């Protein structure tokens, strides 16, 4: 039976971080599966799902990795992944939407938007945010992918989001994500 772990790791961005992480995992006998990595300003951040070799448990993986990654000053956290969560499944045909929100930056935009999505049983499956604009007039931009079990829930969520616009001073669009398969 295969066992899986999720690793999150981050550190100051520089060339060679991915190479070092991948090489370290390879030397430990881990197999890298699904990953997501990006740069948040000056920090490079990684989330990796790995298949563990015999003899290594997730709880030990961080300790085993540290000697390899110390030169790059990476913070590392590992946790076992439930087998059910790790299994590959055919994506279901669930209605998927894109939500873009943007406006003058102030605290609470993410919290209120995410709360509204959650109250309508929306599941955020992917999300990026970025502060843009000039230093004295920062703009907040947020893009998220939202799945709803029922397409009918979309109208109610859209209305609730519309009501947030004046409250938060943001603009937003909520639209069906068209995905085409040929």
């Amino acid at each position: 039976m295969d066992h899986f772990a999720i690793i999150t790791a981050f550190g100051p961005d520089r060339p060679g971080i991915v190479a070092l992480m991948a090489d370290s995992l390879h030397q430990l006998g881990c197999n890298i599966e699904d990953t997501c990595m990006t740069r948040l300003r000056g920090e490079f951040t990684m989330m990796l799902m790995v298949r563990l070799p015999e003899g290594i448990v997730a709880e030990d993986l961080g300790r085993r990795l540290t000697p390899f990654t110390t030169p790059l000053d990476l913070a590392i956290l590992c946790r076992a992944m439930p087998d059910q969560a790790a299994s590959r499944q055919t994506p279901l045909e669930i209605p998927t939407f894109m939500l873009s929100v943007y406006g003058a930056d102030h605290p609470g935009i993410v919290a209120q938007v995410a709360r509204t999505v959650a109250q309508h049983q929306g599941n955020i499956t992917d999300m990026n945010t970025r502060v843009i604009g000039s230093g004295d007039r920062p703009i907040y931009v947020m893009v998220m992918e939202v799945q709803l079990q029922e397409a009918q829930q979309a109208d109610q969520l859209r209305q609730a989001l519309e009501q947030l616009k004046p409250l938060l001073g943001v603009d937003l669009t909520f639209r069906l994500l068209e995905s085409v398969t040929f």
Partner: protein
Amino acid sequence: MAIRPILQYPHQALKSTNAAVVPSDPAVQAVVQDMLDTLAASPGVALAAPQIGQAVQVIVVDVSRKKGERGHGLVVLLNPVILSLEGKKSVREGCLSVPDYTGNVLRYEEALVEGLTPEGRVVTVSASGFEALAFQHEVDHLNGLLFLDRIESLSTDLFRRKK
């Protein structure tokens, strides 16, 4: 005449080069019929010959198989080439030959495609919207390209700066 399995990557037929065909060749007509049979039995709206393991330049497109789409109905093109493309758009695209994954690719809203009918007549098809996407996707197959070769942005990252 038969329903053929739709090949999935890493089958190398999907990455090979494909030969131009002569319409009068009976073997070509047989490929066309197999593609039509396979399309009819598939959940999709279009196929390219390499997807059924035939290394020839034949595509079939019928977007009317999708609810709400009409386009030109069934179009069979031999040796198709895209003459022009207009109106860039980003599309989340998937492929029957690359199951369970989609990616954001750069496509065009309008496509002008030229090819031969199975009878050997030169035709141009001016496609837009969903049908234009289908033609772009299928012509890519004839050139050994999958949507994976065209992924231009990762997940929802809309923030990448244009250089």
